């Protein structure tokens, strides 16, 4: 029941807001926030009750649930979590109340509709991460499109209609293929949609793999399916961008971990060179394009393309460490990029511009803003001690040492880390340093509400950076299981445990060195 | 006489009807061509029925004749109503609906 409550509580909030919208804007906000926080608090119990020894899905009856839904076609209401989905569920329940607070005063029209969309979106996303029935999964996967469509389309920027339609059509084209794949699996799975019983060989495995993979690759988005993302991000309202980058994109990578890899290991291995090439192109391309973006939001959007390239690289490495890193990196990216979008949104509310050239010298007038921005920027770059480092490091290390592909891919991908430092710090320098003009000088610093939005994220940025084992341990068993399923290459020597990684000084040195170079660059300008 | 002659005749009548519908532009003439098609079917029914030695086909013809009569009544009424508005029943000129 616990998990069902977490999933459907936000939907209850939607109904409550629909019924009580007459009470005024404040009531609507507080209801939404209350529901959001309550969902988060309840979802923490998913973590405390989590049994790390359990390899597959949690068997605890509080979490695992299976009820007949449409017996006529063998679909059931079947939910549960494992170490991978746990973190994505928590990420979702964590980011939603933050988004509600972030949107507190920034929604001008249709506030109740906004909050309803946000909460409905939360239910959809949680459902995707928890569904253990392909039919249920697809229902959540598709239904989450509608609130997102409204969020971007109604509360978005000027070209919102173009962006929202592009977003929906891209996703729908992908899910159309996935639907065919799901139906084909259904008949090979004894007329059942049950994910837990899916195993063995599916024919034609390459085509089925692609049917699923393309749908997820569009969502990730993997180069060259990424073109919807910058449009959607730029036009979406701040909160929409946070959810989009924080959670929605993870649905793509989650789908890869949950379906593409364990169900079609051979097809996955067959396409690995192609996919990894695309991922590396995405890493470098995203970074290069981010570097020349004049628009802050577009910059962050393209940095997402680059970061998620790392995640895909790690997922296809057939190496446990790298896969674990990828899963952690999903959460990291959700936190750092989410925070970046929030910060960009806050500065946009003050300056009504997102163009980097319009800014300069903010650090003097807005010290709190600048500090937080710096921390988040460093986290996004992957500074040791912050969350981004752990994930990226594990991905690169794991796929370098035990990856199923040439080491050159990893070397090329590592340049992405350097490029990330370049574009992020260069952006930071242009926005924060220098002498402020009159308008920039008059901008007020962050209000307590805004700090309250950001502080919880900062907490986790540090926590994951310093004590990643809290997060890595629960997912270890699930990742191992996936690794065992996908491993078609001969066993390679396992890499040391994660908590020993600090000992690998070489790579750390490279990173800190890069950082130093960039800081020097920044200072010299 | 063998069945096929009747069927060939009915097929010819039917084809003439189809061509008439496709070629002629006057609504009344189109309507007459449709009647011709129905009667071609009637001819086929009667001939087949006779050939099989069952009464079913003969019976159907009565139904079809009744239906055709009803169709004519309704059809002419509608065509008259169109004529009242447009002063023409050329189907190419009655074309206000398109998109």
């Amino acid at each position, binding site marked *: 029941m616990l998990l069902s409550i977490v999933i459907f509580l936000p939907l209850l909030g939607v109904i409550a807001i629909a019924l009580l919208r007459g009470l005024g804007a404040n009531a609507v906000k507080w209801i939404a926030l209350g529901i959001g926080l309550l969902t988060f608090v309840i979802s923490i119990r998913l973590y405390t009750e989590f049994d790390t020894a359990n390899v597959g899905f949690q068997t605890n009856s509080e979490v695992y649930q299976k009820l007949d839904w*449409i*017996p*006529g*076609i063998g679909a059931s209401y079947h939910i549960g979590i494992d170490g991978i989905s746990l973190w994505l569920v928590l990420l979702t329940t964590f980011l939603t109340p933050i988004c509600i607070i972030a949107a507190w005063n920034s929604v001008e*029209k*249709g506030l109740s509709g906004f909050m309803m969309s946000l909460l409905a979106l939360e239910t959809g996303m949680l459902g995707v991460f928890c569904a253990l029935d392909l*039919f249920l999964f*697809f229902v959540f996967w*598709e*239904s989450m*499109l*509608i609130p997102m469509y409204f969020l971007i*389309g*109604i509360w978005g920027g000027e070209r919102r*209609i173009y962006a*929202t*339609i592009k977003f*929906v*059509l891209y996703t*729908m084209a992908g899910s*159309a293929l996935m*639907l*065919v794949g799901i*139906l084909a699996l259904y*008949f090979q799975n004894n007329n059942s949609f049950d994910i837990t019983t899916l195993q063995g060989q599916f024919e034609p495995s390459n085509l089925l793999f692609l049917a699923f993979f393309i749908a997820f690759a569009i969502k990730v988005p993997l180069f060259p399916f990424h073109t919807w993302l910058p449009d959607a991000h730029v036009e979406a309202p701040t909160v929409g961008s946070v959810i989009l980058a924080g959670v929605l994109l993870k649905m793509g990578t989650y789908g890869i971990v949950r379906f593409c890899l364990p169900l079609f290991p051979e097809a996955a291995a067959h396409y690995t060179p192609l996919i990894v090439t695309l991922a590396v192109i995405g890493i470098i391309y995203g970074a290069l394009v981010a570097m020349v973006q004049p628009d802050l939001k577009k910059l962050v959007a393209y940095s997402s393309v680059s970061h998620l390239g790392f995640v895909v690289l790690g997922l296809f490495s057939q190496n446990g460490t790298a896969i674990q890193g990828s899963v952690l990196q999903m959460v990291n990216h959700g936190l750092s990029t989410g925070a970046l979008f929030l910060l960009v949104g806050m500065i946009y509310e003050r300056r009504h511009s997102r163009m980097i050239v319009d800014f300069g010298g903010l650090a003097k007038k807005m010290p709190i803003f600048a500090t937080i921005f710096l921390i988040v920027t460093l986290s996004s770059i992957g500074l040791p001690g912050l969350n981004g480092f752990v994930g990226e490091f594990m991905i690169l290390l794991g796929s370098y040492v035990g990856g199923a592909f040439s080491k050159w891919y990893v070397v090329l991908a590592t340049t992405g880390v350097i490029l990330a430092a370049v574009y992020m710090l260069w952006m930071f320098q242009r926005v924060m340093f220098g002498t402020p003009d009159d308008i920039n000088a008059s901008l007020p610093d962050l209000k307590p509400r805004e700090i309250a939005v950001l502080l919880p994220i900062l907490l986790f940025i540090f926590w994951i950076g310093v004590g990643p084992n809290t997060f890595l341990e629960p997912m270890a068993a699930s990742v191992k299981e996936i690794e065992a399923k996908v491993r078609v290459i001969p066993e390679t020597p396992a890499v040391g445990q994660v908590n020993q990684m600090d000992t690998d000084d070489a790579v750390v040195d490279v990173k800190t060195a890069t950082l130093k170079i960039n800081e020097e660059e920044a200072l010299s300008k | 006489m063998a069945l096929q002659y009747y*069927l060939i005749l*009915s097929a010819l009548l039917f084809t003439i009807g189809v061509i008439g519908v496709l070629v002629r532009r006057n*609504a009344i003439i*189109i*309507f007459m061509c*449709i009647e011709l*098609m*129905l009667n071609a*079917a009637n001819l*086929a*029914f009667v001939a*087949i029925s006779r050939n*099989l030695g069952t009464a*079913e*086909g003969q019976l159907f013809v009565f*139904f*079809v004749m009744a*239906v055709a009569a*009803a*169709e004519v009544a*309704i*059809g002419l009424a*509608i065509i008259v*109503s*169109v004529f*009242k*508005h*447009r002063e023409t029943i050329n*189907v190419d000129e*009655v*074309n*206000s*609906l*398109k*998109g």
Partner: protein
Amino acid sequence: MPLEIPDINWSLLMPQLVIVSTLLIVLVFDMFDAISKKTLGWMTIVGAGIALWSSIDLLQAGTDQTQFNEMFRIDSYSLFFNIIFLVSTILVALVSISYLGSGDKKQGPYYLLILLATLGMMLMAAGNELIIVFLGLELMSLSLYVLASYFRESPASSEAGMKYLLLGAFASAFFLYGIALVYGAAGTTNIPEIISKLSVGDQLSLLSESPLFLAGIFLLIVGFGFKVAIVPFHQWAPDVYEGAPTTIAAFISAGPKAAGFAAFLTIFVDALPKLPTQATGVIVLLAMLTMTVGNVIAIAQTNIKRMLAYSSIAHAGYVMIGLAAANPDGKSSAMLYLFIYCVMNIGAFGVVIMARTADGENLMISDYAGLGFRKPLLAMFMTLMLLSLAGFPPTAGFVGKLYVFKSAVEARHYWLVIFGAINTAISAFYYLRVVVTMYMREPEEELEFKPYPPTLVIGLVLAAIGILLIGILPSLLLDQAQSAVQSALL
């Protein structure tokens, strides 16, 4: 020859008898000026409601019998279709009551014709004999020709009526000639007998390759193709929908299409596996063409009624997928889809009727700009109907599509399903465009909308509840459709 009068079990004919008596009552009461014309609408609703109730009753009793020397079949298949027709009729009547206004003298014949058309549909679904199907088809079509041209003072309505009449009668002639040829080849017009003659034991019989028979089958496909508006026999549909009174457009798009498919499915789902494979190929090709052409042309439409017309063409294509699958699941999925389609399409037309100003209806999609915040109820209904038409979960449209696709995958028509799935994505584009217009664009001029008529709101609420309920708990309907097909197999 001694005349045998077959035993007739009148209780099995309850739904049809109720409709006949209702239409007689409507006919008589129409003569009294003292009776408000709205009452006639309510009589129609009550009559159709009783017929609906008795259909459900018979369905639950598991009735499976034939009447009138096996010409008329009362089994769960025909009863399920009765439910589709009667639900459509009730919804259309609810929507019509306010649409026609109470002062209009001509309402008696209007409801009379709707009931006659409903009776014709019920005959089509229950027909066990091609000639009964033909009579039902004609009864329905003749009523609809009149209804389409019902607004005599409107040139558009008359024109719609004429186009519908000419093409409809043309199609009927094809259909009839097809029956004649099938009769000539098979020696009977009884549908189960024809199908059983197609095979001898496990082998296909000579009949299945007889040119006369195949020509007849081809003509039947053409005739049905016109009636249910599949590409390339669809040209009449947009013109008729645009010109006809909107309530009638809703009616034509729903019940008659379902009725056409009811007969189509009866004949073809069982016959297709016994025909040369080219026949299945033709159906698959028609399904692909219908979906694609319908959806692609719908994108270009600016008039909402025409858009819905092309969308309903595309939906016929989805039903054809179930037909092409030609397995029990295909049949029940097509039935389920038709039910869902009828409810959501009438709902969409209902919202078009709801958006009325003093000048009449607002038919251009651009007129809907800004309704999302100024007319939240209307916009909400429209959004729900369109999302369902586009096949988003958790609406009924999604369940329908998924089930249709599933049956086709089972029959290994993978390409057909991929086509259908891609078409779903295309269709989302134009459905969502209306939603975009409502919520995301500012209106060019402030339009004064008339207040919502209560009966219309009741109709839409019922449709909306139906769509959501079936979307969330599909078993309610799915089990019925499946058992309807299962019982026919036993």
